[in-house]
């Protein structure tokens, strides 16, 4: 069963404003997206993100999803290796450019996952939503997003309860092949869907009774966000990282191979 990612530990990264953490995450995602050909810089970013993971004490969550990280890394490399087009032949069907592109893709995806897991591990759902609102996302959209983020583990638990109820009635989805397991799980979508939607009326009444939907110019919030010196340094670093990455990409500096893009 999935649990929330948030880890309630005391770290420097936890104390940052959610806006600076979101900007730092986006800056890293921009950097790994544009620095396709700059492999050494990607390795540097990887070490930097690993440093953030260690400093933020969020490595338990990285361990939790290590299977996903490994799968993404391997599949990124393999998909380019056998299908990409290159000019410098190494051996038989192996070419240098797709191989390097595969390494670049593997680094990009694994860095992206780790920096986002660090964000989720060090920031509560409510803080993420409030940070998005401060960035201009309408309150209702942020509410829908944070509600979905909060309810996903709860609904997964409900789906697993439906599975358990059917198993107690003789449904065998454990001692069979993966395709058979999928086929037997499909009819369980119906009760899961209807059980979820049944609570719509109550939830909508609950939020309306708390004033949701009244047109207000300035909505107050229990969570008050204030930027501190460390946040400004983090934001400055994020902007610098993004701008420098884009400049490097445009000018082709530190390029290790030609991706042909």
């Amino acid at each position, binding site marked *: 069963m*999935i649990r929330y*990612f948030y880890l309630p530990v005391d770290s420097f990264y936890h104390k940052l404003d959610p806006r600076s953490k979101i900007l730092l995450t986006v800056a890293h*995602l*921009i950097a*790994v*997206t544009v620095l*396709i050909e700059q492999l050494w810089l990607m390795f540097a970013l990887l070490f930097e993100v690993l440093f953030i993971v260690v400093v933020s004490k969020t490595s338990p969550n990285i361990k939790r*999803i290590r299977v*996903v990280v490994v*799968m*993404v890394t391997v*599949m*990124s490399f393999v*998909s*380019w290796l056998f*299908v*990409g*087009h290159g000019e410098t032949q190494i051996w038989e069907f192996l070419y240098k450019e797709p191989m390097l592109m595969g390494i670049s*893709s593997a680094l990009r*995806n694994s860095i*992206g*996952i780790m920096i*986002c897991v660090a964000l*989720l591990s060090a920031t509560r759902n409510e803080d993420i939503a409030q940070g998005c609102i401060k960035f201009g996302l309408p309150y*209702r*959209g942020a*509410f*829908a*997003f944070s*509600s*979905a*983020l*909060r*309810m*996903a*583990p*709860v*609904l*997964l638990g409900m*789906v697993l309860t439906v599975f358990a109820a059917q198993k107690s009635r003789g449904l065998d989805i454990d001692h069979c092949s993966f395709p058979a397991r999928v086929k037997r*799980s*499909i009819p369980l*979508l*119906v009760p*899961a*869907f*209807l059980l*979820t*939607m*049944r609570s*719509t*009326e109550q*939830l*909508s009444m609950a*939020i309306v009774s708390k004033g*949701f*939907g009244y047109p207000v110019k300035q909505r107050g919030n229990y969570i008050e966000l204030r930027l501190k010196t460390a946040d400004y340094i983090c934001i400055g670093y994020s902007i610098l990282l993004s701008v420098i990455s884009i400049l490097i990409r445009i000018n082709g500096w530190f390029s290790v191979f030609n*991706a*042909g*893009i």
Partner: protein
Amino acid sequence: MKDIITMWRYPKMITLVSLSAALYAALLIPFKSFMLLPGVEIRIATAIVPAMGILFGPAGAWGAAIGNLVADFFGSIGLGAIFGFLANFFFAYVPYKIWYSGKDNLPKTNTLKKVVKYLICSLSSTFAQVSVLAFGLCAVFSYMPYKVLAPILFFTNGIVPFVLGAPLISLFSARLKKWGLLFTEIMKPDDFRTGRMLNTIGIILTFTGSIGAIGVSLYLGIVMNIDTGLTLLGISSPFLLAFLAGLCMIGMQKEDFSGDNE
């Protein structure tokens, strides 16, 4: 497409967005480990997406988009998640638009004609999703080759809703209608584009835009080895613009809406 904005006035629709997003995410997350490509995994949850669009309208579309984004946080997040968000939005939005562009629009698949109508909606939603997602991941971000990604997306996202969606709609619609959760019972006709004069042109543009984007991109990838980058982006963009223009033209009829609205 003004319905995607006007629906946020209704708390019940916002609740439907949250719940459908949470359920979609809950059904996607367990399969994140079974990855075929980075960010592309086996997706049983896609069975409910066209149904979400047809039953909940724009709320289903926003729910699919947000649900996919939430699930991405658990394994495949990156800038490509932006296009995952858009692709899943259209995955539910397109079948809803095409379903309600005709005459007999009750969300029930109890006749052969209705089943065929649903299959057309499901196909159109798959084309829309593949064209948008592959455009973003391959042409914009150069994450992986187009000729690898597009066929796999058809396999992982297209088969399950095509096969299972029609019976799911019939199973869900009666109960949801009784609970007053169909979007036609919550929202008002003024919240939508009504008038169906341009529907035929709109549907043609929607189909040709999405299929054209995929066809041209696959041609460039297989024949000319242009799998990523600006050339691919430049050539496939007009098709996607045509697709969007087509969606904007499709309208609904006022008779589809019932009396009691919020």
